[in-house]
């Protein structure tokens, strides 16, 4: 491994180059960890839903706790109308969470530390929410940009700000996750490099820092998945129940 803290984010081909037309869809380490995450999610939840015992075993408890956790999050933020989108938000939360957590294992690749991945997710959410909003409310959905109770003089300015804030949603959503993951992993790599370069004498301080950072990063990994899911819920809430 190179000392460059950014080299951990390198994407490289595993196996032969696969091309469909002009598009390169080769299997890479990123694809490997996407598959690993999805397979482990399916494994955990399949095992957790297989047996229905009144006293759940550990894996069943895990699956059911996650289920109730996400369903409570959705009903709290977006209300009962968001129920049809439960499976999507659940998959989203679990996918981001597992990708983040897989990234915490040394020598692995963090799928969510790539802007393109988070941006595709965020853009899909943005487009989906906008489409849902227009389907539910027609052109009335545009009222989202006109908050009630604002003086008429300020209205043009507010509308412009609202439109910008709405359009920046996919960017803020994707950049938040990507930047958090990238910054955390870079920092851990940098401190790890300090441990090596300072050696047995001075390496203890960055080592302890590294240990603390690992704990923090695990927290961040969970928190960012949660934030990603809950922001999706909030956007969905805007589309389903027009508040403004």
């Amino acid at each position, binding site marked *: 491994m190179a000392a460059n803290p950014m080299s951990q984010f390198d994407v490289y081909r595993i196996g032969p180059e696969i091309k469909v037309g002009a598009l390169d869809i080769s299997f890479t380490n*990123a694809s490997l960890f996407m598959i690993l995450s999805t397979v482990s999610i399916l494994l955990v939840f399949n095992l957790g839903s297989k047996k229905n015992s009144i006293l759940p075993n550990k894996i069943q408890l895990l699956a059911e706790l996650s*289920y109730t956790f996400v369903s409570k999050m959705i009903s709290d933020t977006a209300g009962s109308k968001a129920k049809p989108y439960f499976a999507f938000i659940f998959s989203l939360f679990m996918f981001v969470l597992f990708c983040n957590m897989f990234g915490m294992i040394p020598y692995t690749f963090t799928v969510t*530390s*790539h802007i393109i991945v988070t941006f595709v997710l965020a853009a899909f959410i943005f487009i989906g929410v906008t489409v849902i909003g227009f389907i539910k409310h027609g052109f009335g959905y545009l009222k989202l940009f006109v908050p009630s109770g604002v003086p008429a003089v300020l209205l043009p300015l507010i509308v412009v700000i609202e439109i910008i804030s709405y359009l920046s949603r996919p*960017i803020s959503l994707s950049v938040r996750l990507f930047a958090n993951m990238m910054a955390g992993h870079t920092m851990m790599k940098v401190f790890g490099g300090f441990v090596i370069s300072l050696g047995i004498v001075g390496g203890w301080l960055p080592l302890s820092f590294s240990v603390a950072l690992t704990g923090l990063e695990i927290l961040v990994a969970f928190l960012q998945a949660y934030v990603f899911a809950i922001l999706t819920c909030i956007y969905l809430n805007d589309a389903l129940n027009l508040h403004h």
Partner: protein
Amino acid sequence: MVKKIYFQSIFFSFFFIKEAFAAESGGMPQLNPEFWVSQIFWLILTFGIMYLVLSKLILPKISNNLESRKAQILENIEAAEKQRENSDAKLKEYDEIISKSKLEANSIFNQAREKAIKDISAKREVLDKQIDDEIAEAEKEIDTLRKNAPDKINKIAIETSSELLQKLIGAEINNSSITAIVDDLSKRNGEKYYGN
């Protein structure tokens, strides 16, 4: 409003950070578009498959499990409630039976005591009568014995004194004179022994 400002500031700050990084380290791997298409393709593929499997197969099962557990728990609670009511009723019944039997036992005890007291008093009366009869008989006997006692004593005294005199004097003495003396003496001394 604060939230929006926060989002925008984050967005702009990262925009600048990205620029700085790109200038410094010869570009982040994230901004190299070489594998973007591949990442998008695999993301859509894996996420899509996962979403389909989760939403069609696994999540309905989990919600089913949760609901059936909830239903069963409710059922059990209902059954428990029913049983509790049953046991309460039984407890009341039991209390009633106990108080009733206590009353019964009390009355039986009282009856038995009265009966026993009656029996005892009847028997006592009979026994008292018997004892009284016996005492009366004994008293009668004593009376006759007492009445006869001085006569016998006098006779013994007369005979003894006549024999005594015969041995002392050696002559036959008239019995009638001795009888008179003894009678006289016994009358005087009788008062000392039978002074009633």
